[in-house]
């Protein structure tokens, strides 16, 4: 009997009902994680003998997981709204007297959506990778690592306990490290992998501290237990927990101030970028915040922090996106920005959780679409990533162009496309919360429209600027079919909000609260559309009406320079963390050398010196020793006599 | 005298000892002294005559009847010779050594019984013909003998001469080695006699001499006796062929005479001890013992002297017959034959003695067992003889000094090739260079 079920359920807003034990189709829940994990093990340990069919197995595993996920999803749909949390106990992981951790899986509406997103989009990316990595001699290993990534992410979202989540969390970190540095022979790739890993460690530290704090404060780390205990916990504790969790989320989701790794992570193969940005990794932060809603709801300060982080990141990423000529980096900037939106929404509390998840889903669709499209372009342009070498590709790569356009429209929030719905809802929530936040988010939407239009124009529509030896062509079907699927999803992803379905769906987990606006909803929508239109127009004026130079202009404004330099994120890190860190280490080393070592060495020297003097007694002359013995005997006789006489 | 200082208290029936008045003891001591001096003079003559007979010569026959005074003449001449003090000598010890030698030689005789209790002429006293006796009489003899060796050793050392030193060293080793065998041989006698006092041991041999029932002990003692006194064929300490005259090479005149005296007295002493311990001491031999008067009065002194002289004759006989053994052979004999045999024999005697004392053991069983043991021993020795002879031939392998590329010592069963004399060319030019070393090592470093 799991101890979790024995805990009294105190929460009434979310997870009001204890999760049911897994049965029926849900008893296969572990397979969802296990399939890609086993596949990864086979591919990574199997060696070259699995080369021939490795990619097929690598695709089959997430597809099978996806199928299982769909099955469970359908099954969940049939259940009562409050009875949709399924728990599967795997084994007793840690058993001590007062602290027990079960390795268990939790399937509830929130994780269900994530499972579908991860396995669904993940499968598409897998399929796409078959074509994209066809020439790579290490493709089998690539698929193994992709599977590992997916498995880790699934464990992250399915874990029923912060500790299990943490395992997945670290697994994601490991897999991302491996995949970003997949082309390890490139120095930049290896560096980027290291950077991602190190920055993630900072976030992981927050995560780990949060787990420890939970353990110390609540004595449990399971979602059910923590949510139950959070009711009665002090605000300070919850605020601390929330900030620590936010730190973890920032690390994984590339939020300011831990955003710097994301752009460098583009060194990995494009499917990896797609996977990281669309389906896995960066969404983990949003998931964490959403999952921990029972903590954040009770800690307004932490919520505010989340909102601020989200807003800053949304603008930050958008500004970076404007200045990048590298298509992937521009898209990466947009990811930062979009994830910032999600955090923003999540930070708003029960109003925004569902919207954050909704945006996460649509973003998953269109960002995957965009990245894979970009990959397709690069594929045909000899891995050229600089948009200033593109131009006029639309007629040559019609499918790519059209699918990319779907994604483009979705991301800028063109009416009726998926992004329109999700972003609109976030804007509503933001305005409902705070006008500053609302206008910030609105501004972000405009900038998004600007840079995405710029990307679109520079890549597909403006005059061609590519080199003579480049022969752009449409990608093979194995790549275009996933593009088509994703384009369709990008276009119609908004159906999830039909009748507020996604909100209702998530309510048992995150609760529900409707934004109360001072103005009608359509005003917000109209304003958003207007801002987007303005952004598009500005881009049109600045990009399409002028010639795009093949070389990036050097003499640019301060803002452009700053944006090109990722708004000095790295410089900031360097100045704020690295330099003081180095000084700290140096001084610590100094203290260690002079102080600690000095004490220890001094003590050792003292003893050594003393023994050096003392050992002189060890003359090697037997007669000296004999003299000592006689002296000793003398003393003994004295003692005996004294004892006798007294 | 030391002996007087020893308060004698024992359950051994030594009651007749220690009761003599001082004048009687003095007379006895003087008599022993004179007796030994005269005996030595006689023995020197005796030896020279006997050896001469054995070599078909006449021997000294000019001075006195049968040349009997020859020794006296020699002694006188010796005393008048120049007393040489070697420059390198250690003066104190050089003088002390012969004195120690001769004093100890005389001292040992204090516990030798010459005869039974007799009447002292011209008085009504009765006294044993023995200076004194101790509960540890025989041990006393051994002790005195071992101190007597100091004379030889110190004399050899103090002379400051290589030959003397070598002689002294040989003597030391010889004494240490042969004393063990000798003492072990005596153990059997002690076991049978149940006493360590000489008079008691003589008394215990009333029925049967120990030479007969303890024959192995007797033989071992006899052999060790010759070794202990440095007599041929065990006279390595003074081997004139190798060491000029051994430990007394540098001595002359009176001091030489003292060594000489000590050697002859020692011969008499060990003979007397052997007589006492194994040949019934002063007791008359068999046919004579039928006459009751033979073991009473002063007659026993005659039997005693006769037995001692028999041993003396054997000493001379050995010298006239046997070549000197090599030093290592001598040591091997002592350590590898005499001591083990003596040990075995001691164990056997102890066992038999314990069994007999316990409740009797049938003599016939004993004799039968001994016969079987002897047969077994012979059989084993024959079988054992053959086996080792065959083995080395079978195992003989050529020795490769660089087996496996490394210099290695020979394995068991391998023989090192005889070293080729490097400098010797056939018809070589320098015979004396090699000669010296090779020859010396062959003779001196026998061990």
């Amino acid at each position, binding site marked *: 009997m799991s101890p979790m079920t024995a805990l009294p359920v105190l929460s009434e807003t979310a997870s009001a009902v204890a999760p049911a034990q897994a049965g029926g189709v849900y008893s296969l829940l572990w397979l969802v994680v296990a399939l890609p994990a086993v596949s990864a093990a086979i591919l990574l340990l199997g060696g070259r003998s699995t080369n021939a069919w490795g990619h097929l197995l690598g695709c089959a595993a997430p597809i099978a997981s996806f199928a299982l996920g769909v099955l469970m999803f359908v099954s969940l749909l049939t259940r009562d709204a409050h009875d949709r949390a399924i728990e599967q106990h795997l084994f007793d992981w840690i058993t001590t007297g007062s602290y027990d951790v079960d390795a268990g899986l939790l399937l509830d509406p929130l994780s269900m959506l994530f499972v579908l997103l991860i396995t669904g989009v993940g499968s598409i990316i897998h399929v796409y990778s078959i074509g994209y990595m066809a020439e790579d001699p290490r493709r089998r290993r690539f698929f193994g690592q992709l599977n590992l990534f997916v498995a880790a992410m699934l464990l992250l979202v399915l874990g029923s306990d912060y500790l299990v989540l943490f395992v997945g969390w670290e697994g994601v970190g490991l897999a991302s490290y491996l995949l970003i540095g997949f082309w390890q022979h490139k120095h930049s790739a290896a560096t980027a992998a290291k950077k991602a890993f190190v920055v993630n460690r900072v976030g992981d530290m927050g995560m780990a501290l949060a787990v420890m704090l939970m353990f110390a404060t609540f004595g449990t780390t399971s979602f059910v237990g923590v949510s139950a205990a959070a009711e009665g916990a002090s605000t300070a504790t919850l605020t601390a927990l929330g900030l620590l969790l936010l730190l973890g989320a920032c690390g994984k989701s590339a939020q300011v101030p831990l955003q710097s790794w994301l752009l460098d992570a583009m060194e990995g193969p494009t499917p990896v970028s797609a996977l990281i940005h669309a389906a896995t990794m960066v969404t983990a932060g949003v998931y964490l915040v959403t999952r921990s809603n029972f903590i954040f709801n009770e800690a307004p300060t932490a919520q505010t922090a989340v909102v601020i982080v989200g807003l800053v990141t949304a603008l930050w990423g958008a500004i970076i996106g404007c200045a990048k000529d590298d298509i992937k980096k521009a898209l990466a900037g947009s990811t930062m920005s979009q994830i910032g939106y999600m955090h923003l929404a999540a930070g708003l509390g029960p109003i925004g959780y569902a919207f954050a998840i909704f945006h996460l889903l649509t973003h998953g669709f269109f960002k995957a679409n965009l990245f894979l499209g970009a990959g397709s372009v690069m594929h045909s342009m000899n891995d050229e990533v600089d948009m200033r070498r593109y131009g006029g590709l639309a007629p040559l790569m019609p499918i790519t162009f059209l699918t990319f356009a779907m994604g483009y429209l979705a991301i800028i929030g063109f009416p009726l496309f998926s992004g329109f719905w999700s972003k609109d809802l976030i804007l509503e929530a933001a305005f409902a919360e705070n006008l500053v936040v609302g206008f910030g988010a609105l501004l972000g939407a405009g900038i998004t429209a600007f840079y995405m239009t710029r990307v679109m124009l520079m890549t597909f529509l403006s005059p061609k600027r590519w080199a003579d030896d480049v022969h752009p062509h449409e990608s093979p079907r194995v790549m275009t079919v996933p593009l088509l699927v994703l384009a369709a999803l990008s276009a119609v992803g908004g159906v999830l909000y039909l009748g507020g379905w996604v909100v209702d769906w998530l309510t048992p987990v995150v609760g529900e609260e409707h934004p109360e606006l001072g103005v009608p909803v359509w005003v917000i929508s109209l304003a958003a559309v207007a801002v987007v239109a303005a952004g598009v127009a500005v881009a049109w004026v600045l990009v399409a009406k002028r010639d795009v130079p093949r070389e990036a202009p050097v003499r640019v404004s301060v803002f452009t320079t700053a944006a090109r330099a990722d708004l000095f994120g790295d410089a900031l890190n360097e100045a704020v963390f690295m330099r003081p860190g180095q000084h700290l280490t140096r001084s610590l080393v100094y203290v260690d050398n002079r102080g600690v070592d000095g004490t220890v060495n001094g003590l050792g020297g003292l003893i050594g010196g003393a023994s050096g003097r003392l050992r002189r007694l060890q003359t090697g002359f037997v007669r000296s020793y004999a*003299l000592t013995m006689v002296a000793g*005997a003398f003393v003994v006789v004295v003692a005996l006599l004294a004892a006798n006489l007294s | 005298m030391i002996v007087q200082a020893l308060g004698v*208290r*024992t359950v051994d029936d030594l009651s007749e000892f220690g009761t003599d008045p001082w004048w009687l003891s003095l007379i006895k001591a003087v008599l022993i002294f004179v007796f030994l001096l005269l005996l030595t003079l006689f023995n*020197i003559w005796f030896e020279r005559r006997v050896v001469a007979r054995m070599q078909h010569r006449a021997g000294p026959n000019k001075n006195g009847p049968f040349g009997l005074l020859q020794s006296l003449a020699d002694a006188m001449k010796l005393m008048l010779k120049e007393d040489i003090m070697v420059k390198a000598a*250690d003066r104190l010890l050089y003088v002390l050594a012969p004195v120690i030698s001769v004093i100890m030689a005389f001292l040992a005789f204090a516990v030798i019984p010459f005869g039974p209790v007799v009447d002292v002429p011209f008085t009504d006293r009765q006294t044993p013909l023995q200076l004194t006796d101790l509960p540890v009489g025989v041990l006393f003899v051994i002790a005195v003998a071992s*101190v007597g060796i100091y004379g030889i050793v110190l004399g050899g*050392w103090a002379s400051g001469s290589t030959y003397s030193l070598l002689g002294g060293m040989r003597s030391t080793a010889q004494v240490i080695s042969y004393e063990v065998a000798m003492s072990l041989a005596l153990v059997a006698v002690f076991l049978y006699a149940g006493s360590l006092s000489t008079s008691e041991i003589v008394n215990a041999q009333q029925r049967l001499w120990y030479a007969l029932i303890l024959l192995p002990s007797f033989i071992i003692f006899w052999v060790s006796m010759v070794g202990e006194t440095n007599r041929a064929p065990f006279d390595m300490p003074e081997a004139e062929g190798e060491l000029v005259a051994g430990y007394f090479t540098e001595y002359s005149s009176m001091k030489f005479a003292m060594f000489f005296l000590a050697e002859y007295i020692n011969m008499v002493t060990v003979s007397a001890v052997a007589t006492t311990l194994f040949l019934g001491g002063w007791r008359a031999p068999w046919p004579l013992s039928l006459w009751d008067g033979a073991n009473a009065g002063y007659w026993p002194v005659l039997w005693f002297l006769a037995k001692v002289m028999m041993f003396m004759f054997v000493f001379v006989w050995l010298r006239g017959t046997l070549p000197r053994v090599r030093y290592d052979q001598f040591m091997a004999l002592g350590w590898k034959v005499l001591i083990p045999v003596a040990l075995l024999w001691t164990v056997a005697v102890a066992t038999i003695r314990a069994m007999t004392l316990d409740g009797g053991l049938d003599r016939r069983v004993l004799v039968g067992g001994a016969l079987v043991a002897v047969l077994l021993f012979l059989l084993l020795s024959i079988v054992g003889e053959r086996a080792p002879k065959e083995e080395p031939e079978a195992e003989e392998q050529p020795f490769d000094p660089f087996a496996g590329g490394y210099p290695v010592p020979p394995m068991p069963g391998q023989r090192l090739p005889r070293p080729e004399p490097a400098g010797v060319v056939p018809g070589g030019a320098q015979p004396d260079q090699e*000669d010296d070393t090779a020859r010396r090592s062959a*003779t001196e470093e026998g061990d």
Partner: protein
Amino acid sequence: MIAFWILAPLAVLAALAMVAARKAVHSALMLAYVMITLAILYAMQDAPFLFAVQVIVYTGAVLMLFLFVLMLVGVDASDSLVETIKGQRLLAVLAGLGFGVLLVLGVAQAVVSAPVGLEAAHAQGNVVGLAELLFTKYVFAFEVTGALLITAALAAMVLAHRERLTPKPTQRDLAEARLREYAETGRHPGPLPPPGVYSRHNAVDTPALLPDGRASDLSVSRTLRARGTLRSAPELADDVDETLRKIGATGRTRTVGDRAAGEVGPPTEGRTFPASGEQPDGDGTGGDS
């Protein structure tokens, strides 16, 4: 008790002399003296068996072993008595004095009653009494000391053992080798000629004379020749005339002419043995090796 007061001071003096003697052999002799004195003291104290054992074992065997080793290693030169360890002598004197005084005090204090004496224990005699104790009460200790002795003997053998690499040449081997060498190189198989023996010199440093009057090089040790301490026969005769003159025997100066003639030494007249005496066994057989 008179014997004690004679023996004891002498023993102490001998012990001191033993410590102070420069030559190890003197030390040994002094020790022997002390040991014999102690043996007599044992005898005085009703321990005749220990008296004998003390002399036999200690004086006869142990100390003899010392002497043997002394001669074997040849440390016969005087030891320097200069102290090399700083302060050792002073401290030794202090420690020794203090220890001695205390010990004397202690043992003197140990016996206050009159001695019991051994009459009761010697009911059957000293040897029997000892034997009874030794083979009943102390039988295990006795056995253990036996084992100890055997172990010690083995240990000494192992320590002093030198591995023989070549088989030991037998007497026959040596004889054959000598004769083979004679056949091959013509070297004389017999022993070397002994050094010269003259009426006044019976020493190893004088070469023997060959029948033709030459000195035989082989008769003296090469070491002495290398040292240059050989004496030639003519030199020996140098002072003969003078000596003869001194003792007034002028009529027998016939070596002068011989000396002038060269290497020829004094006539062999001086080699006559005394008619008898010094070597009374000179007509013995002599060894062969």
